[in-house]
């Protein structure tokens, strides 16, 4: 009896300690998209709203050497059932031992320096349904060991499970034509999504230079498409994931107000099924004028060139494009900022205008407004399917 009591007391204390040491935070948001033109394809709906929720649980041991993070994510979308989805963004245990750091579980990793696109960044799959900018990612299961030395940080990754890319469904806007049906997916590897991928990276900062070199071997995060017919008789795209190896380089040089940036990748198919070998790069610069308007507003100019040696293909819209952007940072109490820009295809004349602006409304609320406009996109550009999908998006979030 006494032992049982002791046991109960013990677990009670452990639990109380855990709850005391742990912290909850997160984000709850509503988002509305207003499309300014009628849909191009049958089945697509008009304006839509959605809600999303992303809580975060964090626990750190007394010594700070161990930590545990859990971040689930859920979105419910009014029109597109493919966009209504849930994911585990993070479920990680981190252990720090002198020069080594272990990270085990589901995580997100970012590599790279450029703004227009993120070529080098390959560990996580893109959660395309979230935003056409491709910056939202699905949680990737991994074992990651970092070794920190005076000549840089060396990272090794074992990625035991592949995450399929998400695609907007038949009813959704900002999708390809035909739409992508993920109920049938093809893999080059016989192990399919269970193929074990791995990656290596070295990153270092030397004075004004930040340099990264990376290598990836495994299932391509970007699929090819095979035309098929699905169970409801629609012509659809079915994703096909090749086995590839990719080497990547990212460099940033920071000289006073100038940031010089370069990302380059070379990709080779390794399974023999004819995945195209190619080289792509993004390079450019950013110059910031500090405190040019009023007391504090900074204006940054960003120019980047996007190149892909495959030329005009379905694989990427950015084969010979230029991005020009202006960044406004008001440096006010509300952290108001905006990025306006254009990506223009030099060969095809396709033009994409974009705006992203945000402002804190109070201690817990923040508003983000985004708009995109697609202009004069020819049929042979992959973005042609988006031509009627100009939109304005308003997102209001509550942070806790």
């Amino acid at each position, binding site marked *: 009896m006494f032992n049982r009591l002791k046991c109960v007391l013990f677990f009670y204390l452990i639990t109380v300690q855990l709850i005391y040491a742990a912290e909850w935070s997160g984000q709850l948001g509503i988002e509305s998209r207003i499309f300014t033109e009628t849909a191009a394809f049958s089945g697509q709906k008009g304006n839509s709203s959605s809600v999303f929720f992303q809580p975060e649980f964090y626990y*750190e041991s007394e010594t700070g050497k161990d930590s545990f993070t859990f971040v689930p994510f859920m979105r419910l979308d009014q029109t597109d059932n493919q966009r209504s989805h849930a994911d585990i963004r993070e479920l990680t245990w981190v252990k720090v031992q002198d020069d080594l750091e272990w990270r085990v579980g589901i995580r997100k990793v970012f590599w790279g320096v450029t703004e227009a696109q993120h070529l080098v960044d390959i560990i996580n799959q893109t959660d395309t349904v979230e935003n056409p900018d491709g910056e939202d990612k699905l949680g990737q299961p991994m074992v990651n060991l970092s070794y920190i030395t005076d000549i840089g*940080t060396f990272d090794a990754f074992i990625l035991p499970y592949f995450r399929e890319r998400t695609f907007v469904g038949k009813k959704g806007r900002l999708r390809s034509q035909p739409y992508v049906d993920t109920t049938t997916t093809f893999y080059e590897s016989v192990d399919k999504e269970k193929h074990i991928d791995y990656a290596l990276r070295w990153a270092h900062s030397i004075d004004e230079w930040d340099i990264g070199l990376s290598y990836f071997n495994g299932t391509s995060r970007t699929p090819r498409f095979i035309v098929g017919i699905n169970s409801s008789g629609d012509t659809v795209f079915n994703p096909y994931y090749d086995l590839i190896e990719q080497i990547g380089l990212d460099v940033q040089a920071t000289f006073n107000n100038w940031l010089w940036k370069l990302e380059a990748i070379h990709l080779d198919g390794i399974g023999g099924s004819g995945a195209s070998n190619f080289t792509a790069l993004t390079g450019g610069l950013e110059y910031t004028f*500090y405190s040019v308007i009023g007391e504090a507003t900074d204006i940054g100019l960003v120019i980047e060139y996007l190149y892909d040696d495959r030329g005009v293909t379905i694989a990427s819209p950015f084969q010979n494009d230029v991005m020009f952007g202006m960044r406004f940072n008001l440096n006010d*109490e509300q*952290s108001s900022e905006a990025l306006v820009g254009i990506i223009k295809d030099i060969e095809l004349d396709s033009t994409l205008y974009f705006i992203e602006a945000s402002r804190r409304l109070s201690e817990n609320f923040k508003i983000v407004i985004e708009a995109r406009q697609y202009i004069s996109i020819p049929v042979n550009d992959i973005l042609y399917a988006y031509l009627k999908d100009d939109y304005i998006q308003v997102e209001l979030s509550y*942070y806790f």
Partner: protein
Amino acid sequence: MKIYLIILGLFIVSFNVIAETAEEKGLAIAVEADKRDTGWGDQQAKLVMTLKNRFGQESRRENRNKTLEVDGDGDKTLIVFDSPKDIKGTAFLSFTHALRPDEQWIYLPALKRVKRISSSNKSGPFLGSEFSYEDISSQEVGKYKYKYLRDEKINGRDTFVVEAIPQYNKSGYTRLINWIDKERYQPLKTEFYDRKNSLLKTLLYSQYNQYLNKYWRAGRMDMQNHITGKSTSLEFLEYKFRTGLKDRDFNRNALKRAR
């Protein structure tokens, strides 16, 4: 022979005292202040920043700072933001240097992205506050040229009044005037003069406490902007020294897992 040396020594010392210019005295005060504040190793503190606009409306932000003293160079600092909640987890890493540009990185937790940022933005506001980046950067002797102006009493304490002229590029100031406590060699007040040489801001340091029986730290700083009427107060809580921080706690990996 010995006696000659002593006489010679006395002569040199007295000559120095007589001939010490205002510039030399100013520099000597800065060197002494720096010497007295050397050897603390590392420190950590919680920081509450309260921003007040001219109508008296307040907003609050909280962060945690870790600083590593670096021999012969500027300090390394890591700042993690706890509030406002939308920037929770955002972290800022800075390697400061006396004259060559600081190295700065920011970690954006939503994208898990570490970005190297330009440190040219000396005069821009830090987090929308009345403190600029150069105000929060570590104060190294070599960053300024000094000139002793006069002695003055502030709140019953004797001070040296010393002018400091920034020698680094892109400063927003033509000069600073520091009131240095004669006993503790810590500032009690700083006036900042803008590029047109008119008084822009006044900073008051208060609630000094001594740590490790040696090092004085202000518990509170109040910055008043005379042009905009806005003010920012900083409260430093839970100062801890020599907590065993190493170089290792101030790199890009540490930035990513800073909480």
